[in-house]
Structure formats: structure tokens, C-alpha cells
């Protein structure tokens, strides 16, 4: 069975979930540090902290999805690292999702659908 479409879908889900949480948390952080004195000790609300903790674990799931896809596509190390880091930069994961879909779509059919054609004994 070909694993690339599944891996690509898993990556798309994680890129969007992680990306939305990160974007929301970043905007909140910017607003909080500028206007609500979040720099002071204990000045942050609990929900804010929980959101960042959630991003941390979602990012971990993103890492698994991204590394799985990078391995399947035989990405070189630097390209892989760029893909992994995209989950830590606000809005970068949306772009990464776009690029990955464009890349997979550009591959010849053989690369993504090869197993159907390559069953030898039938």
C-alpha cells in the first residue's frame, strides 16, 4: 500500500491544527506583552499557559507527521529540518502544507501510486 497520501493528509491536519493554535497564541502573546503586562511574574492567565503547553504537544505530533512524510519522500537533512522548524514559526506551517502538496502533486504518478502497478505475480 502506498503511504504517501496518508502521510500527506496527516501532515496537512497537524500543520493546520498546530498552525492555528500557534497563530492564536502568538497574537495573544503579542497583545498580552504589549498591553496586559504579561512580562510581570504571575501576570498571565491560566488559559494562556495551557494554550502554549497545548502547542508544545501538538508540535510534537506535528514533528512525527512531518518526519514520517520527509522519510517517505526521501528528503535531504536540511529540507527535513526546515519542514520540522516550520511548526514553530507562526503561519509557516500553512506555507509548508502548501509547498508539500505542490511537491507531491508534481511527482510522477509512479512515485505516489506505484504499488498498484508493481504487484509482480498477477
Amino acid at each position: 500500500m502506498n503511504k504517501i497520501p496518508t502521510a500527506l493528509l496527516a501532515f496537512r491536519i497537524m500543520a493546520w491544527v498546530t498552525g492555528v493554535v500557534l497563530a492564536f497564541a502568538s497574537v495573544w502573546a503579542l497583545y498580552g506583552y504589549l498591553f496586559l503586562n504579561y512580562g510581570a511574574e504571575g501576570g498571565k492567565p491560566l488559559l494562556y499557559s495551557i494554550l502554549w503547553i497545548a502547542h508544545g504537544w501538538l508540535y510534537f505530533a506535528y514533528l512525527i507527521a512531518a518526519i514520517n512524510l520527509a522519510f517517505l519522500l526521501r528528503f535531504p537533512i536540511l529540507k527535513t529540518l526546515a519542514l520540522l522548524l516550520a511548526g514553530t514559526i507562526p503561519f509557516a506551517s500553512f506555507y509548508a502544507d502548501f509547498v508539500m502538496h505542490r511537491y507531491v502533486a508534481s511527482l510522477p504518478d509512479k512515485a505516489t501510486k506505484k504499488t498498484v502497478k508493481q504487484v509482480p505475480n498477477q
Partner: protein
Amino acid sequence: MPPSSNFWTRAKTPASIFALLSLIAVCVLFFFLGKWQWDRTQDILDAERAASMAAVPVSEIDQPLKPEDYGRAVTASGSFIDTDQVRIGSRLSRESIAGDWIVSALEIETGQSIAVVRGWVPQGQSFATPEGTVSIEGVLQPSDTFYNATGERGSEIVTIDSRQLSALWNTPLLDGYIVMQSQSPLEADSPESVPPTISTADVAFPLQNFFYAIQWWVFALFAITIYIRWLVIGSKLRT
């Protein structure tokens, strides 16, 4: 063909050794980043605990009380209003002897009053109420809210609840009450001080730093997993 032979051949290539060195560097870096967050967690807790241990004037605590304020050391100075005073029966001394607790209203400089558990006296025994200004130190407690319906047994008061006492004395009172630990000046036959029910203030836990510490260490383990997986996939490619 043993699968491990390819694995080890692959592990000895310059690219793999370079990757291994990078992995070690990353693990060391992540370990120290995790330790830094861990130390931050401890430092924040220590700072918060130290801040909550230091006695603050009760007038500086926001009303109504928040759970973090329960158990805080507070100071107050003012005068006891000797008409606003109740004996609460069936209460124990530090030596667990049954007697009465004396609760009085203390009028502080701001003009507000707060209920103060001055201490324990043997049942039926009289005690001195200081005249003039006193300085006290004690521990802030929330009003007793359990058994609210039975707070008053006939005319006898059994719980310490600032709203109930306020109604009884017809004096506005601050939320909660103070269990007095020391008083100056102190008369010879003053009530004997009693231990507070809640003695350690609850401080907000720095969740974010704590979880980031764990996360850095999880990431270090993940990097090791990825390196091994990378070697396994690489060795399969060559067969």
C-alpha cells in the same frame, strides 16, 4: 542476510557519524534547555512562596479573599472593639483541651474592621481585652462556610463566618478572619493563641515552564528515535 549488518555498515559512514555528532550536540542542548526551564519553575515557586510567607498588612489584601490568600501571614494594628466579641464553645487549645475561642472585631487604621480569633481560654474563664492600639500578627483564614445553616445554635455561635458576625455585631467586617499568633503589647491573662487551620498559602504553579522542561527532554528522546529510524531506512535502501 542479517538486517543488522547493513545497519552497522550504514552507521559507520562519514554522513552517519556526522549525524551522530549532531544528534549528541542536539541532545546536550535540549537537556540544558529543559534543565533551564526546570530551574525557572523552581525559582518562580520559591519566589512566590517567599512573597506569600512575608507578612503583609491585611488592608493591602484585595477583597473579597481569593484562595491564594488563605493561609497568608498578615499584620494589622488597631484596637479591639470590646462590645464586638463572641465566645465560641467546644474549641481546643494547642494542648487539645476543650474550652472557648475568643473572636473579637479589630478596627484597623483604615476604619475597616476584621474578625480576629484572639485565642483560647478555659471554659467560662475571663480574660483581658487590651485597651488602645495593638499590633497583631496572624494567619488569614476563609470564613467557615460548612454547616452554614447550623451556624447559630440557638443564640450560641459555632462557626466563624464574617458575614454572620457582621450581622451579630452590626459592624461591617472584611472577608475572612485572622487567627492571631502574636500581639503587642500583650497582657498577662490574654487568651492563649491557637494554630491556624490553613497555614500554608497556595501559590500559583508555573505550569508553562514545568511542561516546557519535560518537553525539551521528550524532544531529545525523539531526536534519538529519529536518528535510529533514519539509519534503519538508509540501510534498507542499500539492499
